[in-house]
């Protein structure tokens, strides 16, 4: 039992941090402990990151859960751990951003930190979930926490409205997700992902019913990851929510949604006839969603004047790029073949995306903390003169999102597109071309922000007071520096992502996963070592 708890230690640490925050919030006198609380929570996230790091080294890439207690519900593999790392990083930086932002917004309540912790918990479980029920509950933990965080600025009608919109559409999407789970359950008689995969691959499932469920699941996750045409909530919610929350929402929800969607599709519907069979295939659907998302996101972003709203459309465009990563992972993977093309691009791209967005929203928080958040881009005019460091970080973030070399974003795109080309035998060359053309178009709106920050003079009549916050600067600075580091020396991170991709291929393949046995017996540990993917 102790072993089991060790295996979920990142989850436990985050949960405990959330509970401690709540208790401190209740018993501490108003306004006295909030700063400490943020550091305590950050420390918790750091500890959880450390736990993830240790587990990473303890886990062989192909290992399933090697103990009894939770093996039905969780899959502990490198893929899940890597995404947990990304999520925790996002949560950590979002927490630091909030330390002085919340007081400036007059919303300094201890519950903020608890909710960040709990939503991070939900996200982490989402990417580890091994059955659809756990996945659903984790998704609800995440979503409900985020709904509340979006409306955290109670005094702002924008914030409340964004929360309400997110809530209505989100709970509708949850219902669609449930219907999808239900149809999948109906087609296969089980809610364990692996058994669904076996039934689907073995032809035991009713295919129309399973396909119906599959489409519903894709729609529901498409909503969470903001894939067009299920993206409509994104701009309104991103704009209305407090900037520190939006930053976390943009990166965490996306990482969790993509992680869960990738695992779900590959484990449950990895069988060739569901994947890239003639007409019925999720690959086709993903390709369509990817193209619509990147085109719609980029086109709409061109017209935006508000940084947060622009980043929302940018998030939609990046969903399009990220969806391409799902096409990379090979349908059947036995050892060598899998090495040619893995889903490592997904993990690395999410990492790059997380860092850039945290930096960008951090700057948005600093600029908007004094209540001009809803103003347009003129609020950023002359930022370079007012605060060169923030302007520099914003520039790095924009260049990374744009995909300029020597930033992590460039390496992310390179990995992603390179993998896609080498996996499909050139089949998806056209998609890569579409994506590259889109990233060229995106230069317009990303660079405009940089230009406004550097070129224009600050508007004279409305001088904006920047938020002076050391933790925020640390968060933004760390994100910007890491963006550069992962752009200049990305090899280790890319290798780790490749390992993560490998483990996803391995654990999601019913045949290589190691038999999942009936309730009475303990699970069998699968300890297939992968070939060292890092070196040729």
């Amino acid at each position: 039992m102790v072993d089991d708890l060790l295996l979920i230690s990142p989850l436990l640490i985050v949960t405990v941090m959330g509970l401690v925050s709540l208790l401190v919030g209740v018993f501490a006198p108003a306004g006295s402990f909030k700063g400490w609380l943020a550091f305590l929570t950050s420390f918790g996230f750091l500890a959880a990151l450390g736990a993830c790091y240790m587990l990473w080294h303890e886990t062989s890439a192909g290992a399933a859960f090697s103990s009894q207690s939770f093996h039905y519900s969780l899959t502990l593999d490198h893929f899940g751990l890597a995404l947990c790392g990304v999520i925790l990083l996002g949560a950590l930086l979002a927490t630091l951003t909030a330390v002085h932002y919340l007081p400036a917004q007059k919303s300094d309540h201890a519950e903020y930190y608890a909710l960040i912790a709990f939503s991070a918990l939900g996200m982490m479980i989402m990417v580890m979930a091994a059955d659809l029920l756990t996945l659903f509950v984790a998704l609800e933990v995440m979503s409900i926490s985020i709904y509340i965080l979006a409306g955290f600025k109670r005094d702002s009608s924008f914030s409340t409205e964004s929360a309400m919109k997110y809530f209505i559409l989100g709970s509708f999407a949850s219902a669609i997700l449930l219907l999808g789970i239900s149809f999948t359950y109906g087609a296969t008689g089980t809610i364990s992902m692996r058994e669904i995969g076996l039934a689907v691959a073995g032809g035991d499932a009713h295919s129309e019913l399973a396909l119906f469920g599959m489409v519903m699941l894709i729609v529901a996750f498409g909503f969470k990851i903001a894939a067009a045409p299920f993206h409509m909530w994104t701009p309104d919610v991103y704009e209305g929510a407090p900037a520190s929350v939006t930053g976390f929402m943009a990166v965490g929800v996306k990482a969790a949604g993509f992680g869960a969607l990738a695992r779900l599709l590959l484990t449950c519907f990895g069988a060739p006839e569901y994947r890239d069979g003639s007409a019925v295939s999720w690959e086709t659907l993903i390709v369509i969603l990817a193209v619509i998302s990147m085109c719609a996101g980029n086109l709409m972003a061109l017209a935006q004047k508000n940084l947060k709203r622009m980043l929302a459309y940018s998030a939609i465009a990046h969903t399009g790029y990220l969806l391409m990563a799902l096409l990379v992972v090979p349908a059947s993977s036995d050892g060598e073949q899998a090495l040619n093309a893995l889903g490592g691009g997904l993990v690395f791209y999410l990492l790059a995306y997380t860092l850039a967005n945290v930096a960008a929203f951090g700057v948005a928080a600093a600029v908007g903390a004094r209540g001009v958040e809803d103003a347009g881009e003129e609020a950023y005019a002359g930022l370079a003169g007012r605060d060169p460091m923030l302007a520099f970080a914003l520039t790095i973030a924009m260049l990374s999102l744009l995909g300029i070399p020597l930033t992590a974003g460039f390496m992310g795109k390179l990995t992603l597109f390179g993998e896609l080309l080498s996996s499909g035998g050139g089949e998806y060359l056209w998609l890569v071309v579409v994506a590259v053309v889109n990233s060229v178009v995106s230069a317009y709106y990303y660079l405009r922000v940089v230009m406004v920050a550097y070129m224009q003079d600050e508007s004279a009549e409305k001088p904006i007071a920047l938020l002076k916050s050391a933790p925020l600067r640390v968060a933004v600075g760390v994100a910007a520096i890491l963006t550069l580091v992962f752009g200049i020396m990305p090899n280790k991170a890319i290798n780790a992502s490749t390992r993560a991709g490998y483990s996803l291929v391995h654990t999601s393949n019913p045949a290589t996963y190691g038999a999942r046995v009936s309730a009475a017996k303990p699970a069998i540990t699968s300890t297939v070592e992968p070939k060292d993917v890092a070196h040729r």
Partner: protein
Amino acid sequence: MQTGNAVESADFFTHAELLPWIVLLPLLGAAINGLFGKRMSKGAVTFFGVGSVVAAFVLSCIEVSRLAELESGALASTLWTWFSSFELHIDIAFSLDQLSAVLLLVVTGVGSLIHIFSIGYMRSDEGYWKYFSYLNLFMFSMLLLILGKNLLVLFVGWEGVGLCSYLLIGFWFKDMPKAEAGQKAFVTNRVGDLAFLIGAFILLFYSQGTLDFHELKQTAASMHTDQPVELTIVCLLFLVGACGKSAQIPLYVWLPDAMAGPTPVSALIHAATMVTAGVYLMVRTNFMFSASETAMTVVAIVGAATALMAATIALVQNDIKKVLAYSTVSQIGFMVAAVGVGGYVAAVFHLMTHAFFKACLFLGAGSVIHALHHEQDIRKMGALKKKLKVTRWSFLISCLAIAGIPLFSGFFSKDEILFTAFTTSHWGADPKMYVFGMLLLAAFCTAFYMFRLYFLTFEGEYRGDKHTWDHAHEETVMNIPLMVLGFLAAAGGLLGLPHFTHAHFLHGWLQPVLGFVKGKAPDGTPLEFIQVGGENAFTYVHDTNTELMLMGLSVLVAAIGILLAWRLYKRPASELPKAPVDAWWHRLLSNKYYVDEFYDATIVRPLRGTANLLHKVVDVGLIDGLLVKGPAKTLGKIGDGLRMFQNGDVQAYATVVVVGMAAALFFIV
């Protein structure tokens, strides 16, 4: 497949420790000035900004002399593995071979001079530190581009110089049109980069995971036999990339607009270094171009057409920098055409001499503009030879060089291009003659418009206002670079004396990279041919008589051009010929063949129109009008213009989700 190459690479390359420092020093300078420059004195900013580049030049000289001592191979230095996973292995690595050595010396040398010139030109500017920081950042990117051992490092530099040129054009000024010029430059460049990237991806697909230039030679050889079509596609995509960076048809439109930046920047980026990056790329991958006849043909035609077109536009421009800008486009067209006819050495030679005389011309223009308080219209200049002596002489020397007057550098390099185009065995006689003819005509135009510029600026009488004239003067710190560049513009041609002298130094120097082998044809005439491509190798014949005849022809053409300009423009102000503004040809030329308008009509406006249509139809129309307000109000709503996609109605959003879901369901199930 990696191991064989790796062993060979290890043998081929000699380790060089100083190489990374050549690249890193300017980066260091940029970082110091960028981070602390605001608080440092101008002297300190100058020290780091200029010193780092000069130091890089010194290091370059040391390394190039080491390279010269090597018996074979090249210098290389690997910093760290950038990227190594599944099929791909890419290092952050630099290499210095004979080709990059030429560019390295040109870039660091001319770069140093322009940095020194900038001390004077930018002295009174409040953004002094920012300027040097960007300029150093540019040098860093350019050096990455030149020294990159593989295509990806080159691409980093490639993107970097584009970004820096954007920064230098756009950040400098507080008004929007100039910023938009920067954006136009950047986006046009991005179109080229896009083609380059796609080409690199295709190449990667066939090269088994390497992008190292040394190893790509095998790829090119195998693709020549197995995938000739793909090879041609890659070459053409690289050509588009080069067109973006080197301002060739159809992507040249950004360069004249880029003149909005400070003049030393125009000299450095838009004349001497960045714009030649496309030529460098094609020469660097010469083994691929040589193996694809189609690609070569397209390259030659693009180059020659650009050379002629830009030269004709330059005939009627009145802004001193615009003339030089179109002249640059035209001269790079010469280089590209040289690549297209297989004259890689000629291309590199002209690239070098052009860097000298064009940098000198731009700096001279800068000196004039500086002296006249930012007056750029040559109609308001004249007689400046009395005030700006050093400028005048260096400008005159450069004009003679670019016009192709014997013994000046441009004469030798331009002549070699013409000679190569005339004698190449690469294609049949007819198309070859078109290329040759276009280049010759362009050479005539060049001589004419350059001397028109010279006479209007420095001779005749002064046509501007008196006050400015009284204050016009030169500065020493700006004169030194002018003198050095003027000397180089005059003497640079000695590196490549005509072939009949058998003293073409550059030819021998570049031989290890460009793979020329000297030999004799069956009938005894000396040949030179390129190895790559086996039976596709092409020759050009050395015939002293032909060479001398061509020289005579081009001197004649240049002389006529100069004399014509002299007759027309060396006159008092009242007798200057009136521009025939109503003539159709004048309108065509002064409107630059309406290319900007053409792009506006075919690309920019449709794109903007699509975006607006999306707003009007999808946003306002479909969602707001059709879906929410009911069809009756739709039409009235469309006029509202920029009301956008999202109308804030959460239930309309939900409807989109449901409709999307229905579409997906009916599509899949």
